[in-house]
């Protein structure tokens, strides 16, 4: 089971790979769309990469609720 810091670190690496944002800028309060240059298509990539990395299922209906990095971290910690 990953810790909160480990999940944040993992998501930061995924966002860096997909959107080119420096990992240190990927913080819990950041919005994927408004702060991290992750549009709706790239968000699908983030979700699929997170599913693989954290062995979690993120249903399509759930993706719209993941507005911030913190939302995603919480979902992964709860459901992984």
């Amino acid at each position, binding site marked *: 089971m990953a810790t909160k810091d480990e999940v944040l670190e993992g998501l930061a690496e995924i966002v860096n790979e*997909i*959107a080119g944002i420096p990992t240190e800028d990927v913080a819990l309060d950041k919005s994927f769309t408004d702060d991290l240059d992750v549009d709706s*298509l*790239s968000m*699908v*990539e983030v979700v*699929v990469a997170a*599913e693989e990395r954290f062995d979690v299922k993120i249903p399509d209906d759930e993706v719209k609720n993941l507005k911030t990095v913190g939302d995603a971290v919480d979902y992964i910690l709860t459901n992984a």
Partner: protein
Amino acid sequence: MTAENRTVVVTGIGAFTPLGADAASTWENLVAGRSGVAALTEEWAEELPVRIGARTAVEPGEILPRPLARKLDRSAQFALIAAREAWADAGYETPATDESSKLAPERLGTVIASGIGGVTTLLDQYDVLREKGARKVSPHTVPMLMPNSPAANVGLEVGARAGVHTPVSACASGAEAIGYAIEMIRTGRADVVVAGGTEAAIHPLPIAAFASMMAMSKNNDDPQHASRPYDKARDGFVLGEGAGVVVLESVEHAEARGARIYCEAVGQGLSSDAHHIAQPEPTGAGVARALADLFERNELDKAEIVHVNAHATSTPQGDTAELKALRKELGDDLDHIAISATKSMTGHLLGGAGGVETVATVLALHNRLAPPTINVDDLDDDVDADIVRGEARKLPEGRIAALNNSFGFGGHNVVLAFRTR
């Protein structure tokens, strides 16, 4: 000039080709007669009948940032790099949508073509689907593989709102794009259009498919001499990749902003063969009709034409059919025309060819220099025209014009004309 017949000029050029990552290095290598063809060393090439190709001189990933590159098909990557160069070369510093821009985005268009579109994206994502399942197919697949993706991405880059278009006519696509762009400006729909062609089809499937048609050179042991238009030993084209883009502009718009003008884009001639889906019409009748259309619809003095960048792909039938058409329409004037087949160096870029060869034609006029055709060791007896062989040749002083020919599977014939000012 009425709004329906405005004069169009070339104010910017950009190229990303097997001979260089920009127009200047591509031109330098064209003039020097260097080949961009090499052996394909990928593992997948080992089992193919054709194992040569003309890859771009530089990988686009060395120029574009990774987050951008991964959302673009290779063909769009080439187009974007060439378009950025052309845009800057024309003196534009910001997108037209930028507040500081003096050019209204509603007066700016893009027309970028490719013959095949995002074929490597399509095939790579099919591999992902089969090997890893539907969930792993990239959400960027459709915007990457659609053939209008290069035009649309360049349109986003420069902020074009007058229209973004993608004519598709196989190997004539790039030239057709530039012709379409000339018409957009001539008829008043736009003041500035970024236009050209791109292709990225070096992948085992297109190579196997073209090879099955007996269309490609199988000179695997001697890649640099495989593309040999007009030579008796020519045995098909060599597949190349890359993009060529120009910025076209109404002369009034260009002069008002004090832009450097390379030359005039006089116009286009078009026709179709109604002969065969993939074979060239052997007498050159379709090409001759495109030339006749050019002269009928544009004010162009045949005696001013001193250079032709020929389509000449190094196929046995096509090269000489084109020359027959030029002789039919130009008569004795053909004797003072320096003909260059730059595919002898770049390979055949399919939908990218018309773009790259337009850049070459514009630079030939601008520098008054016709690039050589390499590998013509034993000229075909049917060649009744002045092929520039060996070294580049100086073109005359005074007002001169040049043609760029492109033809495509399906029987598409496009002739573009350019003239010094």
